[in-house]
């Protein structure tokens, strides 16, 4: 296993609110190897986007990092001073947001926004920066880049704008790209093109990708490994094949069954009863406990750690060969 490009250990993010402090991300750990595509999946509100924001250091106050370490290419980046972190953003880690309509500054031409980002990180004269911008546009599949460089965002379609966002994100050849629901706002046909584009770019530049999405189908086709998050925690993580074919954690299983299959039966899709608990009201023990059919007394009292479960790691007592750790209750 080569040294992981990104290593996240026991990440903990809290949100001080009116009724006391709430834990938004609780003890999340995972790693991403260079060139690898890690999918992070889960219901909305499970903390996927927050994890992405935490990695790139863009948590908006009052959200703030409380515990854990984030290491990028072996160097800790969660405690870097503002200026140092800023230099990493865009240069080492690129980020793509969900809604292309609002991710681009309406008053600047796309050329200007591209050239500005390029010259911020790469020491290029304006003319060569312009060449690179044109090359980027070409690379992300925008025809007639020469003419369109000086047009404004509102003169492009949703799909085209997302391509420009991606061009912006990879402008400085970052080694890691965090894509937060990159295709959610687009229709299906464009989605496929965007995903293919992301895969091609990642393969060509060897950049790792953290793909955040609630669309299991998308993750299944794209990611090498998948982390399933629930109520601010990683409940299961492992190679995509394993997660798809035989999910270990009951929640992951529920998710897989919820995906309609082509040629599958016509009857009702099976649903997971209840709803994910709000951040302030996470039950003791396993957060999925109340909704889990196989919940046992242990599940209700002790919080499971990520335990190896034949092929994937799952935070579930079903796979604990050893008896549950004695007495010690860890409450989220």
């Amino acid at each position: 296993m080569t040294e992981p490009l990104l290593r996240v250990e026991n990440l903990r993010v809290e949100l001080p609110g009116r009724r006391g402090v709430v834990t938004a991300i609780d003890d999340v750990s995972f790693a991403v190897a260079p060139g690898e595509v890690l999918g992070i999946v889960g219901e909305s509100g499970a903390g996927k986007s927050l994890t992405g924001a935490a990695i790139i250091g863009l948590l908006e106050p009052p959200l703030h990092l409380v515990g854990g370490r984030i290491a990028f290419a072996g160097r800790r980046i969660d405690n870097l001073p503002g200026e140092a972190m800023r230099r990493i953003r865009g240069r080492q880690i690129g980020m793509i947001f969900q809604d292309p309509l609002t991710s681009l500054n309406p008053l600047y031409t796309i050329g200007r926004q591209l050239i500005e980002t390029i010259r911020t990180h790469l020491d290029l004269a304006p003319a060569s920066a312009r060449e690179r911008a044109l090359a980027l546009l070409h690379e992300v599949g925008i025809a007639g880049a020469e003419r369109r460089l000086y047009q404004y965002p509102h003169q492009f379609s949703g799909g085209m704008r997302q391509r420009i966002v991606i061009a912006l994100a990879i402008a400085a050849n970052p080694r890691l790209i965090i894509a937060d629901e990159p295709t959610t706002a687009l229709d299906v046909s464009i989605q496929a093109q965007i995903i293919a584009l992301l895969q091609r770019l990642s393969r060509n530049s060897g950049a790792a990708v953290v793909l955040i999405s609630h669309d299991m189908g998308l993750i299944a086709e794209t990611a090498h490994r998948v982390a399933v998050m629930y109520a601010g925690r990683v409940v299961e993580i492992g190679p995509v094949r394993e997660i798809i074919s035989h999910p270990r954690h009951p929640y992951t299983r529920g998710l897989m069954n919820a995906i309609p299959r082509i040629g599958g039966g016509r009857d009702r899709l099976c649903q997971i009863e209840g709803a994910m608990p709000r951040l302030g009201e996470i039950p003791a023990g396993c957060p999925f406990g109340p909704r889990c059919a196989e919940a046992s007394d242990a599940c209700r009292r002790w919080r499971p750690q990520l335990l190896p479960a034949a092929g994937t790691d799952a935070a579930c007592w079903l796979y604990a060969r050893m008896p549950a750790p004695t007495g010690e209750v860890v409450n989220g």
Partner: protein
Amino acid sequence: MSSIRDCGLTACGWALADLVAPAAAGRPGALLRRIFDSDLWWSFRRSPVTVAAAIVAFVLIASSLLAPWIAPHDPFNLASLNLLDAEHPPAWLAGGSWRFPLGTDQEGRDMLSAILYGSRLSLLVGFPAVLVSMVLGVTLGLVAGWRGGLIDTVIMRVADVELSFPAILVALLIDGVARGVLPRGIHNEIASYVVIAAIALSFWVHYARTVRASTLVERDKEYIQAARVIGVRPAKILFGHLLPNVIGPVLVVATINLALAILTEATLSFLGVGLPPTRPSLGTLIRNGNDYLMSGDWWISLFPGAALAALILSVNLLGDWLRDAFNPKLR
């Protein structure tokens, strides 16, 4: 982004509904608990500046509205004025007396009572004037921005004509007409309405232009088109969805215009078209006192000035908090 704006209304609608609903259900106690429990109160309590501003505003407005009962003298009752006690310095200075705690003006009016009565008059002119001009201006601004075409041109050109007449001239016109039409006696009673009309007529333009500019930008946003698509009546779209998203700058202009309204009233009174000289407002007190600054009677002008400054300061700070609190995007 557009989704956040879309819930702009619902958020503040929610805050209000949250407060009102239980009262409607006939449980006033619950309303109080609701208020103290709601988000608004929490954000209010958190910023000390706003709490201080609220206290100052409350004290000033309450004391001025209760002036007839709490003021030591009645400055508008001419019979009680005695010319010989004119220009007493404040009580704590030599020559001052505790009968007139803040001293007296050039006509023997006790400063403290004059400030209380004066600010009552100023408020009774200031607030309605700003309200009327805001309602008128915002409505016309929305309509101009929304409909575009001829209506927009007409409204904006009327605004230009309006803009070129300083409030002073507008007041002269209205006063002249009022004086010509109405018999002398009634004129004094409606003097304050004349002033309100004059100020409102020359201030509505500020709101109209601002709202129009913002409407032009918001009009093509998706949440508006969405509302249009589901058949919401245009008026509901304008006032329900669009207005909350353009209200920010309007509140800024409104709170500052309150200061402008009070001062304009003083200028009009000086020209003899505002309130009658025998019933001076806060602005008139400052203007009259202004001539005495050089003669060493600084208190005639500075105390009313300070009162006005405190009033405007607190109202504006409250305005700031209110705008931020009601703006879901900033929560």
